[in-house]
């Protein structure tokens, strides 16, 4: 039991935690060893447990795909039949070894993941290399398996108004490149572009040595470079001249605007502004993540709305979800406030969002709240690197995009150094610049940017 006096003693310590050195920064196991084996960039974090993970991050997400649906299809084709073994055999072998394989894609990357018992590192390294360089891309497999998986994915995306809205917000904000849909919508005629041959050519370029990075946690670095060097030397060198190659990086430009999509699946509004790019790039602005934590909307503690401006402003709306996020990419970012729930509540709450931003811009926020926001932003940044799901991709993405690998201490420092003034300026720039507004659902009730007082 905590006595009242001990709580009182600890509270000031919790608030002034910024002065203390971070425990994790001093711990060397959280740093990745970056090396190169057989021309492939490898990052490894020795943890020394009984299990390990290995991820192959390829710069081939929807931003770099030549035609719609290619990144999706490439992701779904992972661990399908290769020249050496069938998809069924791969599945059964992995089952026997007790591992876990999965693939996913984001706007910038396609990620193949394997989790396994430490002793099985060679097997899984070979498997990833085989998938990357020797997948068959048979037309019948596309027809019988992959296209169905793609349809289910599209169905899942279209039945979630929030995902539709976020996707549309990227499209409105960035147009092509980073703005292209992460998963093509159900009405997109992507079938005419996607074929086995086209995908095989795309894969040759996507999984080229210069285009991928391997990120491992668990096993020791010498083993990783040894096996990667052995199995990944046959990876294609890339730079094919076909029309299906990975698209070159075009510097992202922010446009902004408004889009309204009628949908029966539910209601969502996304209010977006140009945000901060990933750590280690020139557009990295730590104040964006602090502002995201300050606006918030989701409580981190149970049974309380929390300190954030939006959850305080909308605590009377029982059927409303709000979340604020800075989506960071290699050369741009999108700061999004997502609202979903009942149409009337979403409509009213969107006005609250703009009011909260105005409050932040005018500096009418308690400095204590900003301190809490800084602490939360720091926690989120560090936690996302430590969590396997997000950390592996972030690290690999940093390597393939040529920016510096994540350094935990520097991120923590950057977030800690954010001042109230910077947060205020960030909010002001959001309000003065062009905003992005996407409404999905019952557009009869959802507001226009004009009604909210945003310029688009």
């Amino acid at each position, binding site marked *: 039991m905590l006595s009242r006096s001990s709580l009182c003693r600890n509270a000031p310590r919790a608030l002034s935690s910024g002065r203390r050195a971070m425990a994790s920064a001093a711990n060397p196991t959280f740093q990745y060893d970056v090396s190169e084996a057989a021309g492939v960039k490898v990052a490894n974090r020795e943890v020394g447990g009984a299990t390990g993970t290995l991820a192959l991050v390829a710069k081939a997400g929807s931003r770099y795909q030549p035609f719609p649906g290619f990144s999706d299809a490439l992701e779904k084709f992972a661990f399908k039949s290769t020249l050496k073994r069938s998809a069924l055999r791969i599945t059964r072998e992995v089952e026997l070894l007790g591992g876990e394989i999965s693939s996913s894609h984001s706007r910038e990357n396609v990620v193949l993941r394997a989790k396994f018992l430490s002793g099985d590192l060679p097997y899984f390294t070979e498997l990833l290399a085989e998938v990357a360089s020797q997948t068959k891309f048979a*037309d019948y497999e596309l027809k019988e398996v992959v296209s169905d998986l793609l349809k289910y994915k599209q169905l899942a995306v279209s039945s979630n108004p929030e995902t539709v809205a976020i996707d549309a917000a990227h499209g409105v904000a960035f147009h092509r490149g980073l703005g292209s849909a992460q998963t093509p919508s159900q009405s997109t005629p992507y079938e005419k572009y996607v074929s086995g041959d086209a995908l095989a050519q795309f894969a040759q370029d996507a999984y080229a040595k210069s285009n991928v990075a391997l990120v491992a946690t668990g096993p020791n670095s010498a083993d990783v470079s040894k096996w990667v060097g052995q199995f990944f030397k046959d990876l294609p060198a890339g730079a094919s001249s076909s029309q299906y190659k990975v698209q070159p990086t075009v510097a992202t430009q922010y446009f902004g605007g408004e889009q309204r999509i009628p949908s029966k699946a539910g209601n969502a509004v996304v209010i977006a502004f140009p945000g901060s790019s990933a750590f280690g790039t020139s557009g990295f602005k730590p104040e964006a993540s602090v502002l995201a934590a300050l606006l918030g909307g989701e409580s981190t503690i149970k049974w309380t709305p929390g300190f954030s401006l939006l959850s305080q402003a909308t605590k009377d709306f029982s059927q409303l979800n709000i979340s604020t996020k800075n989506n960071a990419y290699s050369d741009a970012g999108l700061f999004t406030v997502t609202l979903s729930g009942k149409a009337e509540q979403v409509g009213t709450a969107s006005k609250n969002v703009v009011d909260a931003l105005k409050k932040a811009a005018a500096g009418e926020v308690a400095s204590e709240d900003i301190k809490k926001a800084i602490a939360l932003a720091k926690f989120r940044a560090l936690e996302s690197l430590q969590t396997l799901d997000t950390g592996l991709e972030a690290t690999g993405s940093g390597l393939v995009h040529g920016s510096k690998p994540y350094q935990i201490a520097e991120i923590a420092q950057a977030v800690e150094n954010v001042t109230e003034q910077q947060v205020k300026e960030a909010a002001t720039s959001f309000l003065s610049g062009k905003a992005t507004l996407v409404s999905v659902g019952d557009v009869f009730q959802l507001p226009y940017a004009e009604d909210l007082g945003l310029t688009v």
Partner: protein
Amino acid sequence: MSAPSITNFIVKRPWLKRWMTPLANWYTDAAGYRKLGLKFDDLIPEESETVQKAIKRLPAKEAYDRVFRIRRAFQCSISHTLLPANEQIKPDEDKEYLSPIIREIEKETKERAELENLVVRK
């Protein structure tokens, strides 16, 4: 799908192959399916899961041509006529187009059966 065959036995012995080839060619021609405009693979009974799956895996053009040949042969059969000589299938056109796919599917089925009955010894 396939009936028992002595093809492999013959092909492995060049002298026997040399001896049998003219005979085989005469026999295939005498079977008469080419005169109705069919290829040998069109005659494979399609009432099995394997062949149905193989037909689904055919490229669009091949599948269309197959249906065309079968319908043309059907018409010939109804009207008790043979195709004019220039429309009949020539021996060099009578290539396997379905059998490779069928063999692949049979291999997959066999692999699946083997993996289902796998016994793991440690």
